C-alpha cells in the first residue's frame, strides 16, 4: 500500500461490497484506488475532500446510496459523474470510469 498515487474514495456508507466493486473497476483499468471510512459530510463534501487528498486530483464520495466522482481540475463544474448505486455492476463501472478519467480514455458512461 503506502504512498502510491491513488484515486481516493471516502465513504460513509456501511456497504463495503460497493466500495470493493469500485476498487475492482479501477484495479482492472490499472489505476490505484484507496478507500477510507468517513464520519461526516454528504456524498458531495466527501467527494471534494477525497479529490483534494488524492495526488491524482480525483476523488469518489459515497453516502446515502449516492456516489459521485469529483475532479479537482473541474473546480465548480463538478461532479464529473453522479450516480445512485443500485447494483454492483454500477459501482464497478463507476470505479472503472474514475480510472479511465485518470488515463484520459473514454468513459464507460459515455458509451
Amino acid at each position, binding site marked *: 500500500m503506502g504512498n502510491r498515487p491513488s484515486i481516493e474514495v471516502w465513504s460513509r456508507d456501511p456497504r463495503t461490497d460497493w466500495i470493493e466493486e469500485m476498487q*475492482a473497476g479501477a*484495479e*482492472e*483499468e*490499472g489505476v490505484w484506488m484507496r478507500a477510507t471510512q468517513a464520519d461526516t459530510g454528504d456524498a458531495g463534501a466527501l467527494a471534494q475532500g477525497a479529490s483534494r487528498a488524492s495526488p491524482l486530483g480525483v476523488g469518489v464520495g459515497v453516502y446515502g446510496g449516492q456516489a459521485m466522482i469529483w*475532479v479537482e*481540475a*473541474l473546480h465548480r*463544474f463538478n461532479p*464529473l*459523474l453522479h450516480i445512485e448505486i443500485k447494483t454492483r455492476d454500477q459501482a464497478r463501472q463507476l470505479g472503472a470510469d474514475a480510472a*479511465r*478519467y485518470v488515463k*484520459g*480514455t*473514454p*468513459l464507460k*458512461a*459515455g458509451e
Partner: protein
Amino acid sequence: MKIIAGADIGNSTTEVCLGAISDNGFRFLSEAMVATTGMKGTPANAKGVRVALEQAAEAAGIQVQDIAVIRINEAAPVMGDTAMETITETVITQSAMIGHNPDTPAGAGLAVGITAGLETLQEKPKGEAYLVLIPQSLSYEEAAERINEAAASGYTIAGGIVQRDEGVLIYNRLKEKIPFVDEVKAIEKIPEGKKGAVEVAPDGQTIQTLSNPYGMASIFHLNADETKSVVPIAKSLMGNRSAVVIRTGGEVRAKTIQAGALTAVGERGTVQIPVDAGAEAIMARLSEVAPLISVTGEEGTHVGAMIDGMIRSMKDVSEGISQHSIAVKDVLAVDTTIPVSVEGALAGEVSMENAVGIAAMVKTDALPMRNVAKALSSETGIYVEVAGVEAVMASLGALTTPGAGLPLVILDMGGGSTDAALLSPEGVVKSIHLAGAGQLATLLIDSELGLENRGLAERIKTHPLAKVESMFHIRTEDGLVRFFEEPLPPKLYGKVIILDEDGYLPVESRAGMEKIIAVRRDIKKKIFVTNAVRALREITENLREIKSIVMVGGCALDFEIPAMILQELSRYGITAGRGNIRGACGPRNAVATGLVMSYADGGTRHG
C-alpha cells in the same frame, strides 16, 4: 432596366443568379441556393426555383415579379449511384481461435496447455500443463484462490481464459504470474481437453508466436502440410496484443464470396468481369473495351440492383424524349475494406474483409426541361426559357473567376458524378461525365470505419477532427489546442470528435484519430484525383495547352480535395484551384451565372 434570372437545377441543389441590364450596361445583383425539390428534370423542381428566386430577390431589394425572364439550363441528363460488394469472408470453425484484443489483458508471455474448466480442475490428473477456463460464475477472488491452491497442490497451470473483463484482477492475486486473455463472451463454446496456447505481448508490442505459422508448428508439432493450414490463423492474429489458438480440429477459413460479374459492352468489344477480381482488374478490363456503351450487373447482386434502379428512375424522368436507350456509361470501382463480424467468433471478433465500392453513372439523351419550364412559368407568372447546355453555361460562369483564362477546363465535383468541360478560345465546349464523386466517398468512409451511419460518415468527410484531451481542451488534427470556458460534456472525454458547425460530434470507432484521417484522405485521393486525371485524359489531347482548371461544385468546397488535385496536376504546369465565381461566390453558382451572362452576350456555340 431589365432583370434576368438564371436558374441551375442540379441533383441536390438549385442555384439562381440575378442580373440587371440597363443603358449603362450589365451588372450582377444577387444569388441564392436551396435544396432541389423533386428529382432533377421534373416539374416538381419549379417549387425550389421559386423559393430561391424569392431569396435572391430579397437580397437584391426587388420583387420576384420584377424579373423579366428566367433562364433554366438544359440540365445534364446524368444520374449517379453507388453500391458495395464484400468479396471475402472469414469463418472460425469449432472455436479454433480467439483474436479480439481485449482492453486489459494480463501478464505477458506464451502459455501452452490442455484446456480445462477451473471449476472441475480437481477431477483432472496432475502432470499436465493446463489452460484454465474461467466462466462468469466464478468471482475473480474465487478464481485466483483456486488457481493458487491448485498450484500449491502440484497442478501446473500455464495460463487462463476468462469470460468477464477481470483478467487483471485475477492476475494481481496469483502467487505465480501467468498470462490471461479476458472478455471471451462465448467461453462455453471452448471444448475441454484440447491442446491450446495463450499468448499476451508485453506493453506496446504485438504477439510473435501465434502470428507465425512456424511458431504454431513448434507448439503443436505440425508437419509441413498442417503448418500450411494454420496460415489463415497467423494472418488473422497479426498485429494483436493477445491471442488464443486451440487445436479443436476446426480452423480459420478465409473464403472468397461470389459477388457476381459486371458485363461491359463497349465500342471495342464486350467483356465480363467478376467483381471479386478487385477494383484494379475491373478498371483495367473496362478500359480495354472503352468507350463504354452499357454496363450491367448480375441479378441478385448489390451492383445489379443499383444499376436496375438507376435505369428505371431515369426512364421515369425522361419518358418519351430519349432516342437511345438509357444505359450506364461509366463506372468507377475502388478497393476498400469493411469490418465484418466473424462467423464462429467467441469474443465478438471483427475482421477487415475486402470489398469493392462501385459508382455508376447513367446517361440519357436529354431531360424534359420544357416541362419544368412550363411548370415554373405557371408557378411564377414569368416568361421562362430553356437556354444553353449545362457544360457551356458552367464554363462561362467559371471564367468569371479572377485569374482564369482560356483554354479553360471546369471540373464539377458533385454528389453523384464528376463532370468536366473544356472551353476553347473559339468558344467551343467539349464535355464528359464520370462516375464517382461525393456519394462514393461517403459510402467508403462509412464502410471502412465500420460506422453504419451515413450521416456521420458525411460529416467525417467534410470536417476536420480533434481529440478531447481534458475536460477543458481539445487538440485539433493540425496540432493546435483549443480551450473552453465551460467543461466539455463527459461523454466526449477522451474521444475523437468532429468539429461540426452545430457542435462536437463523437466518432464511435475503434480507430484512432490518425487512422481516421488516413482513411479520409486516402478515399478522397482514390476518387477525386483519379477522376480529375481520367476526365482530363478524355477531353484533351495535350494537357500542357490548358491554361486554367477551375474546380466547382460541392466537393470543390472540401477542405482537402482541391489541394490534392492541384498537387497532382501541378506537374503539368496547369493552374488548378477552387473557383471563385464573379470573385464572390466561391465554387458555387457557375451555371446560374453563365445563364445570365449568355443572355447579355447573346449565347455561345456548343461543339
